[in-house]
């Protein structure tokens, strides 16, 4: 493209004093950040859709139906908690989808915002604050989480693993688990100076054990006691247990319901408070 040095182009100028009301950004800044994140997310819609539909389909075919048929044929169609293996498995798979979907939105994009593209610094050069960036990212992560869990639910519904009635509560439980875990991961991601393999380590030593030892494929009580603690501190187990209790009525102590909700919400509060502090500090450097 040739450049015309003599171009007479001028810009119209009302001036920010008349044009921009700072209170709009002060009130709705987090929504503007979420809008940007969602715009970015749309660029990846095909991957998100493929992951949202493809992943559950593969899981349901291989584990749910494959292993499920084996379990059901050995122990009967209502062998675990009085329901089929597929129904038993469904809340755990939804919790995983919620956690994974939300996590994808807070890990690499955070490194991108602070290190690679430094887009968080450009946001912060406007009226947007560090806290609003955190809130906006979490809002967008929740939007992704809801979409991904809902797609998963439709697959589970098609396979007869859940009922229409259980869709809203399972959506809420899985999204809350995603929210709590993503909040902690956002703080952690914002603390990383550069990608030095930290996310790979987290994947191998946090996500995978959490998925394997949180009562996903069998009740947590089936595991040796020295492994059960992994489930107790994992949002995956709390969401799974809660989902099972609230969808097909798995027997559960009432106080445990409060513990499940409480732990996920406490994770969210701690994670967001931590993220707020780190974002504000890092953006001021």
């Amino acid at each position, binding site marked *: *493209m040739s*450049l*015309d*040095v003599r*171009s007479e*182009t*001028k*810009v*119209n*100028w*009302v*001036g*920010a*004093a008349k*044009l*921009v*009301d*700072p209170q*709009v*950004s*002060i009130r*709705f*800044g987090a929504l*503007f*950040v979420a*809008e*940007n994140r969602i*715009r*970015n997310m749309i*660029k990846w819609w095909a991957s998100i859709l493929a992951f949202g539909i493809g992943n559950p389909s593969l899981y349901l075919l291989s584990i749910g139906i494959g292993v499920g048929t084996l379990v059901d044929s050995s122990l009967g169609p209502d062998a675990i908690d009085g329901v089929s293996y597929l129904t038993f498995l469904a809340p755990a798979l939804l919790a995983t989808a919620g956690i994974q979907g939300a996590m994808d939105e807070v890990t690499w994009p955070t490194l991108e915002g602070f290190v*690679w*593209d*430094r*887009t968080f*610094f*450009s*946001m*912060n*050069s*406007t*009226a*947007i*604050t560090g806290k609003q960036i955190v809130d906006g990212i979490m809002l967008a992560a929740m939007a992704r989480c809801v979409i991904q869990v809902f797609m998963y639910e439709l697959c589970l519904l098609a396979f007869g693993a859940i009922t229409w009635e259980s869709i809203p509560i399972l959506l809420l439980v899985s999204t809350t688990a995603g929210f709590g875990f993503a909040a902690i991961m956002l703080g952690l991601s914002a603390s990383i100076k550069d990608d030095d393999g930290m996310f790979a380590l987290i994947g191998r030593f946090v996500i995978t054990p959490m998925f394997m030892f949180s009562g996903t494929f069998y009740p947590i009580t089936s595991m040796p006691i020295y492994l059960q603690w992994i489930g107790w501190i994992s949002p995956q187990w709390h969401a799974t247990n809660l989902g099972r209790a609230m969808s097909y009525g798995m027997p559960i102590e009432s106080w445990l319901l409060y513990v499940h909700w409480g732990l996920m919400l406490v994770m969210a509060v701690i994670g967001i408070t931590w993220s707020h502090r780190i974002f504000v500090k890092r*953006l*001021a*450097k």
Partner: protein
Amino acid sequence: MPKEAVKKVLPEAMITATELTKKYGDFVAVDGVNFTVRRGESFGLLGPNGAGKSTTMKMIAATSQRTGGDLVILGKDPNTQGPEIRAHLGVVPQQDNLDRELKVWENLMVYGRYFGLSRKWLKGKIEELLEFAQLVEKRNNKTEELSGGMKRRLTIARGLINEPEILLLDEPTTGLDPQARHILWDRLFRLKEQGVTLVITTHYMDEAEQLCDRLMVMDKGKIMAEGSPAELIKKYSSKEVLEVRFGSENNIVVAEKLKGIGERLEVLPDRILVYAQSGEKCLEQIVKLGLEPVTSLVRRSSLEDVFLRLTGRTLVE
């Protein structure tokens, strides 16, 4: 002139720094600087790396809090009213921080949205700014497909989306080729003509001379000098400078023999600078001494000479 009359003549102060200080632990990045920038002015911060100009810029941008002194921007305190101030600023950072995933026009759209501007209004403004930045043909390209100069122009266009009262430019042309630099200077000059207040940090003296009405030379966090480019040259340098080269190994020895020629001598590793009212006369005196420089050049004094005088260092090191 009575004080009341002065108030009427001077445009309003957009930025006022009083004993402005920034410390990181024991390290003092900005050490009690005082300056005022008035509406419509083009104000330059000049200095080498580590001088404190980018730190000063971050405090003016209301993203980094001062640790001492006072700073008033657009009548507000950046330590407590950061978002209110930033809503009316335009910022062009040293390092382009465009969103690679988004198209050129989308980068302008999302940035405008951060100011709470409506999509409808932004659509018109984006077309205008793409025209201004000569990026109309690239509107649907991703930013990673743009050249360095195009990215810089887009970053400047982005900084104008809210029609800022003050545009902050941190080393706007670093890394650009001469043609791209001239285009940017032209665009910035047009903005200045439209009354936009500019605050610019730069390594480049020619850029400072082209764009700035007034300059503040900084080194080690302190102000070394302040004034218009012409004032600084007049105050801290001579009318002309004679540059002579005798070979890098001989310069120091020859400089001893040149004492008394011109107003002042500066010995650099590759050349000797003779500051004088007439460079030609000095050259004649040198030749009369029987010395034959490998090369010689007589030129007008520049801001580089001012900086060398004030800090003992060249600007780009």
